[in-house]
């Protein structure tokens, strides 16, 4: 089952890129939906006690201890669900725009989907690294081909930044690999890597190597400078892939690889890492408040939200890790909704500047209501999906350190400020010539926003659905790795 999730999108992607068939939109949507169906099917009868489900393993390079081994515990399953849930929404939302050379666009999106699934399913260190990088190539092409102003410089910066980050991870991974010993050979298998005891000094370097890779990807302050420009210049589909799914690779990497491989050094570095994350929350929130471009505002809000998620994970207690997992799902859903809203407005009135909007609620009431729900989720109002996630996260950071928890809590206040300001400026106030003729949502857009808004409400009422899925795995990981 794990293999299918990776192979379907990759094979269809190659087919689409090579043969350029007609009706590629339908093919892409069908593939994404098929993958969603497979991942839902994988959830049925899932053993959530923390053991590996749906494992698949064949030796790839047996002499070097590399195997193509996949599997999912609760954490992986949640990420796979997130990926395959968002993929159809991203494909569907791309239907609203015409791209030149559509086979190439949808082919790259599907390649990205396969690689992302691979990242979350890989149980072998090198395989993880390869998928982690494979995901970078299609998104780079998507952003650089169909992006906006100054896209070539911005996307090259993005590529080099993330690639350099992950090269440090490769060196760290190689070091740990060379310390493993499975019957006289080295091995990249997760179990073997985790079992390795590192000297305190080596553990420091390994931890830093991994942290650089994941901190750039999430991004954590001060490694975030590529992010706002890249989000803004990318086509909306690319921005959704980046913010909805790709940055979760970084958080997932921390839970699955960074902390378990080098727990020896965590005691020293955790306060520094969490402080960076918390600084990033406040810094990005303050900048978000001042933004006039709606897309850039959401980009900065994303840094703030991810900062909180990172802080929760690094606190490494039950509430923090569970909260981060829940919030990764929620943030993915919300941010895809928000970027879709931006794209919808931009298509209608040709601008993303808040000052040029106003009064949209009057001419498009359905749109206003759906936007309101998504926005409330992002603000973490009780009974929307954001609330339980942020509550758990703050609880986790608070029990690590009261002061850091207090500062991180500012995110809720700031979040309310900038989101409500943006909503107010865009939807209420004086209507201008453009916004009086604002068309309400069409069927296609209704589906995307409706699904997102529905999930905001459902997950707000029943966060336990998600938490139960990951509970066993989180207990197991926290039990095994302590520092």
């Amino acid at each position, binding site marked *: 089952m794990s293999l299918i999730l990776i192979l379907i999108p990759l094979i269809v992607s190659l087919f689409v890129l090579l043969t350029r068939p007609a009706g590629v939109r339908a093919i892409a949507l069908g593939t994404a939906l098929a993958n969603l169906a497979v991942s839902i099917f994988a959830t049925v009868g899932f053993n959530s006690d923390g053991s590996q489900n749906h494992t698949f393993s064949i030796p*790839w*390079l*047996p*002499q*070097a201890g590399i195997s193509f081994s996949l599997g999912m515990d609760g954490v992986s399953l949640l990420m796979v669900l997130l990926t395959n849930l968002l993929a159809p929404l991203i494909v569907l939302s791309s239907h609203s725009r015409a791209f030149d050379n559509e086979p190439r666009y949808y082919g790259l999106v599907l390649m990205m989907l396969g690689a992302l699934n691979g990242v979350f399913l890989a149980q072998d260190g*090198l395989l993880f*690294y*390869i998928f982690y*990088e*494979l995901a970078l*190539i299609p998104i780079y*092409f998507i952003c*650089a*081909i169909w992006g906006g102003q100054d*896209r*070539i410089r911005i996307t*090259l910066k993005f*590529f*080099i930044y993330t*690639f*350099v980050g992950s*090269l*440090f991870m*490769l*060196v760290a991974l*190689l*070091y740990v*690999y*060379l310390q493993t010993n499975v019957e006289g050979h080295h091995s990249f298998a997760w179990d073997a890597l985790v079992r390795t005891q590192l000297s305190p000094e080596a553990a420091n370097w390994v931890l830093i190597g991994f942290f650089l890779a994941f901190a750039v990807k999430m991004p954590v302050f001060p490694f975030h400078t590529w992010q706002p420009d890249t989000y803004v210049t990318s086509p909306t589909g690319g921005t959704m892939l980046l913010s909805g799914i790709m940055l979760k690779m970084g958080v997932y990497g921390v839970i699955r690889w960074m902390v378990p491989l080098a727990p020896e050094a965590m005691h020293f570095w955790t306060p520094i890492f969490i402080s960076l994350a918390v600084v990033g929350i406040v810094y990005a929130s303050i900048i978000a408040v001042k933004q006039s471009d709606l897309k850039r505002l959401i980009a900065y809000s994303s840094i703030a939200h991810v900062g909180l998620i990172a802080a929760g994970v690094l606190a490494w207690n039950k509430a923090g890790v569970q909260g981060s997992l829940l919030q990764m799902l929620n943030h993915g859903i919300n941010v895809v909704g928000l970027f879709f809203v931006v794209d919808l407005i931009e298509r209608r009135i040709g601008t993303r500047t808040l000052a040029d909007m106003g009064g949209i609620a009057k001419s498009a009431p359905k749109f206003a209501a759906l936007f309101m729900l998504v926005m409330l989720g992002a603000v973490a109002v009780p009974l929307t999906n954001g609330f339980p996630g942020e509550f758990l996260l703050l609880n986790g950071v608070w029990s690590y350190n009261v002061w850091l928890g207090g500062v991180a809590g500012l995110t809720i206040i700031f979040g309310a400020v900038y989101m409500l300001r943006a909503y107010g400026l865009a939807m209420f106030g004086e209507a201008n010539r453009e916004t009086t003729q604002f068309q309400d949502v069409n069927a296609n857009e209704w589906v995307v926003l409706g699904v997102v808004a529905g999930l905001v409400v459902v997950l707000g009422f029943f966060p336990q659905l998600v938490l139960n899925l990951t509970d066993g795995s989180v207990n197991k990981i926290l039990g095994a790795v302590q520092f």
Partner: protein
Amino acid sequence: MTALLILFFTAIIVLFTGLTKRRHFLQPIALVGSLLALAGIVFAPSYGWKDVYASMFHFDNFALAFSGVVVLATALIIGLSGWGFRDLSDTLGDNYGLILFSLCGALVMSSFTNMVMLFLGIEILSIPLYVLAGSRRESLSGNEAALKYFLMGAFTTGILLFGMALIYGASGSFDLRAIAAAVSDGRHSAGMLNAGMVILIIGLGFKVSAVPFHFWAPDVYQGSPNLVTAFMATVVKTAGFAAFYRLFSMAFPGAESFWHLPVAIVAALTMTVANLTAIFQTDFKRMMAYSSISHAGYLMMAILAIGVTGGDRALLFYALTYSLATICAFGAYMVVAEQNENGSFATFNGLSKKQPLLAAVMAIAMLSLAGIPPTAGFFGKYFLFTAAFAKYPWLVVLAVVNSAISIYYYFKIIIAMYFSRDEVKFDHDVVFPASIRWAVLVGLGLIALLTVIPGSVYALI
């Protein structure tokens, strides 16, 4: 040995066919000859051809594997030559003949067990190349390239001979195993041996264009015909490193503590200087020249991994993937250069719209050269880095930083092909010969194959 004989006789047949009017047979004959030689290597008997000619050659697995790489690369280059030698029709037979003779030298360089054979191999490889580099007789830059290459080559030859003489003086033998024995039991004069090794490193450094002995490479690469440049960048480099590895692993493992440091310094300099210089290039062939120098720096890490399990495999795999990617890149470039000769990056603008296949080949070649997963080039770097990591972690970190730098210039081509919104004029009526298309596709297929089963090299050595 079989392969060597097949290649030699094919070269003679090609030379004589060139004298007749049937020039259109030249490419097929050369191609068939090199494929037969490849078959001779693949099906080489495991019992025969060891220690032939009074222990001058030893066709062990190492020799066979590297011979296979150079013969394969040559076969692909001959496949690409459908056009490449078109402007040289009066000397066409000579060109194919010289390439095959040069290849014979490459085979000798990967199978010698005696320093005399090493010297002969290098000369057999080099002399035809001096002629090939200047084979466009009217071209000014071609003449410059040939003269530079010849002068530097002759100079290097002197240096190499001097080094060998010192080694002979120190150990009393030209035979690699006898030298190794003398080195390890201490019956040698240390000063002379050390001086000899340093001079050999310098001489081989010239041949593989390592910094600071690389200054000839960019001009020679730029001035030579495209196919000859591709041959120099792949076959000559692979053979040079095979010889380097073979010499130092068979003769000097006992003196490791001495020669490791200079090699490590040269490796570090080579990758760093070449990458930093490549960033500023605006001409495709010069960029590829610096890229090939930087790859020489990475390959030097394999020399430092002598004695580590997998060092030779890493060298083999890296040389193979590097050669395939370089040949694919030159194949695509040749078709582009046919339309627009100036060779700047701008000639690639918008290629993905006009020639999606060529653009894809070029893009994958660039990704592989940059070592980006999951291309075969990544596994090449991975094997090399793992082999060198235990002894030289600082060098691996430097190599990692350098491969990050290299993205910048490799991606310039990809950016021009895919993201640039202005387009070059590309004449659709020009149909490029089927052999070019096939050679490029075979190269691409092999890169894909090495990506899926990187373990295949483990069977070879």
